[in-house]
């Protein structure tokens, strides 16, 4: 056994976290090589055009859209960590919009169907969604109800054996390409119900494509629902339990998004490290100036703290706990770290960082959404604070 005298820091050691097994690492390798070979080369183009639907069919073929979904519906039957691995490796595409489009499909819209759907609903939507033949989206936010989910106005009114839906939803990722939407509606004063509404149902109107600060590769829609008639069988889960279904769904998704934030920050960090080794000013590589060295040290520390927080919380979640407080902490912290790291990397790049060519500015624009989407920083702070009875 080594003694203290001969122990040297080994910064190059492969660091496998305890939550991951060799199988997870093998999966990571295979996703990574797919992403780098088939997605990353198109990232630039897709920023202009949004990514094509064929990404879903290709990922379906490879089995990447149902990693943690039951084998009975075509999934791989893996654990929650396989979804984390996917969320992390998708960031290697250098396209936040692409990663988000896929994540909304696999980690936001699909889980409630798997968890609360009837056998018929699963066969109708989950099976083709895992194959990448049908694309999913989820509708929560409305023009006048963002953080205040209970303030939504979209109504589903019972009419005979049908429901008639009226309202509008905004900031809907995959909204233009989706085949079905998991729709949050009000069925009573304080009563929320989820519906699976086919996007080709009469009265579903895909309004304009929304332009955004970042996430340009994803399509984001404003949707209107005008007298959309759906049968009772379109109800997802229990009537009146929609709010709880959605809150549950958001927890799992928030951790995966936190993992994506950490991986994205790591990638931007590494690219910038490379730049700081190569770029010279005042006769030396800029990374060798103390202030720049310390910036890297700060960033690395932040990334590591966010990573450990996310992994440990994921481990608890995967082991059957429901640690909403810590999930909120991880989401808050990882989102902030991702934005701060991207911002610092812009600064280290100087003028080049401000130019699109280097891709760092895009990392910031993409990362910036995380402090707003799927629960803003302020909502996370509220959830954490309230968890102490405040």
């Amino acid at each position: 056994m080594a003694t203290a005298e001969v122990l040297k820091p080994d910064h190059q050691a492969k660091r496998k976290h305890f939550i991951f097994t060799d199988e997870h690492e093998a999966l990571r390798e295979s996703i990574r090589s797919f992403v780098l070979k088939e997605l990353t080369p198109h990232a630039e183009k897709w920023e202009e055009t949004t990514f094509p639907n064929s990404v879903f069919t290709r990922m379906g073929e490879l089995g990447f859209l149902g990693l943690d979904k039951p084998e009975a519906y075509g999934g791989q039957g893996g654990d929650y960590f396989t979804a984390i691995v996917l969320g992390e490796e998708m960031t290697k595409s250098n396209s936040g919009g692409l990663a988000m489009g896929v994540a909304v499909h696999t980690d936001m819209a699909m889980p409630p169907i798997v968890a609360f759907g009837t056998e018929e609903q699963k066969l109708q939507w989950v099976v083709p969604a895992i194959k990448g033949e049908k694309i999913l989206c989820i509708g929560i936010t409305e023009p006048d109800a963002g953080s205040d989910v209970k303030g939504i106005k979209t109504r589903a009114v019972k009419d005979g054996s049908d429901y008639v839906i009226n309202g509008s939803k905004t900031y809907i990722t995959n909204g233009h390409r989706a085949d079905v939407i998991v729709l949050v509606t009000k069925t009573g004063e304080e009563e929320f119900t989820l519906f699976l509404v086919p996007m080709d149902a009469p009265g579903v109107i895909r309004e304009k494509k929304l332009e955004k600060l970042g996430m340009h590769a994803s399509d984001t829609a404003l949707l209107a629902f005008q007298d959309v008639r759906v049968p009772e069988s379109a109800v997802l889960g229990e009537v009146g339990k929609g709010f709880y279904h959605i809150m549950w769904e958001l927890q799992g998704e928030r951790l995966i998004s936190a993992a994506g934030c950490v991986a994205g920050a790591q990638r931007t960090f590494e690219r910038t490290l490379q730049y700081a080794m190569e770029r010279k000013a005042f006769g030396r590589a800029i990374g060798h100036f103390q202030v720049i060295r310390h910036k890297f040290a700060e960033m690395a520390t932040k990334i590591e703290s966010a990573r450990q927080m996310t992994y440990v919380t994921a481990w608890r979640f995967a082991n059957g706990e429901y640690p909403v407080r810590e999930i909120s902490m991880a989401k808050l912290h990882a989102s902030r770290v991702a934005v701060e790291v991207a911002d610092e990397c812009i600064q280290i790049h100087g003028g080049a960082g401000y130019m699109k060519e280097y891709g760092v500015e895009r990392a910031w624009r993409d990362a910036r959404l995380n402090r707003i989407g799927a629960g803003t920083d302020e909502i996370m702070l509220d959830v954490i604070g309230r968890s102490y009875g405040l």
Partner: protein
Amino acid sequence: LIQPPFTEEHEELRASVRGFLDRELAPCAQEWEREEWFPNEVFVKLAAQGLLGLKYPTEYGGQGGDYLHEAILVEELSRIGSGGTAAGIGAHNNIATPPIWKFGTEEHKQRYLVPAIRGEKIGALGITEPDAGSDVAALRTSATRVDGGWVVNGEKTYITNGVRADFIVTAVKTTAEGGHRGISFLIIERGDGVSSSKLRKLGWHASDTATISLEDVFVPEENLLGGLHEGFKLIMANFQWERLAMALGAVGAMRMAYERTAQYARDRLAFGRPLSKHQAIRHKLADLATTAYVARCVTYDALRRFHEGQEPIKEVTMAKLMTQRASYELMDACLQIHGGLGYMGEHWAQRAARDARLGPIGGGSDEIMREILGRLEGL
């Protein structure tokens, strides 16, 4: 509510400038941002109002005012809704023409300053190169002595007005040795050997920021601006005003962003009451108002000293450092308060954050400001 060094006379000018910009520029700002270009006629329009020569003597077509008048224009331009447009006008007024006014011969002034004030010729300043940003001494663009002038070869980058400029006040190496001591300035007209390619950026979309390559460009003797090998002095001379102008731009932009965000917070309902009635948001806005006010005070103090003829390098550097980071952070907080709406492509808050992000990089990065302050403090 007139804050020194401004007086009532200045505030009248401000009102008239604001009225003009609101009518003529602000309504087009979004379109120009989208097109990533603002039309050259903007210069002509501004010239017709005397806004390209506020601080220049009347004998050259200027208004005979001073830097305080120019300061008003800078602040007001930051409110039009397009950082790129303000940057293009600012590059012309605040960095390209001042060296000609200060260091130029009478002939230079007649040939470049007079038409620039009329909006007939557009100017740019060319210092930064791909391998020489913060480190000015690393410049490599060379001017080789030939009969009757120089032949210039090299590449300049991140040049505001780089596509549209008729003349570029360019830093070149006139001697291979000597770092700082080998730099001179030449006024280079667009012509043979000068080619520009536009760069795409995080913000300042309406600005035609470009890389300019100079290939065997002949520049006649008389286009030497300032003394031979004395270019570094010229660079330093204008830094103070350039940095003050950036601070002033941030001050104007911050005030406006705060006001608009506070209004949004009063109007937008969440959980049954306006956002502003949620304590965390109210306190956030209180912080933003404080930041905007501190930025204004620091900047106005430096401006007053500058105007009085002191050489307030320390105060100007501090103002530049403080306001640029503060402005970006304030814009980012405004974006956050707007939530999903602020993230949308047509929203002013995300545009303002993108535009403000240049501040801690351009005109001397935060790191360079801290280096200067360190030296001034004897550290």
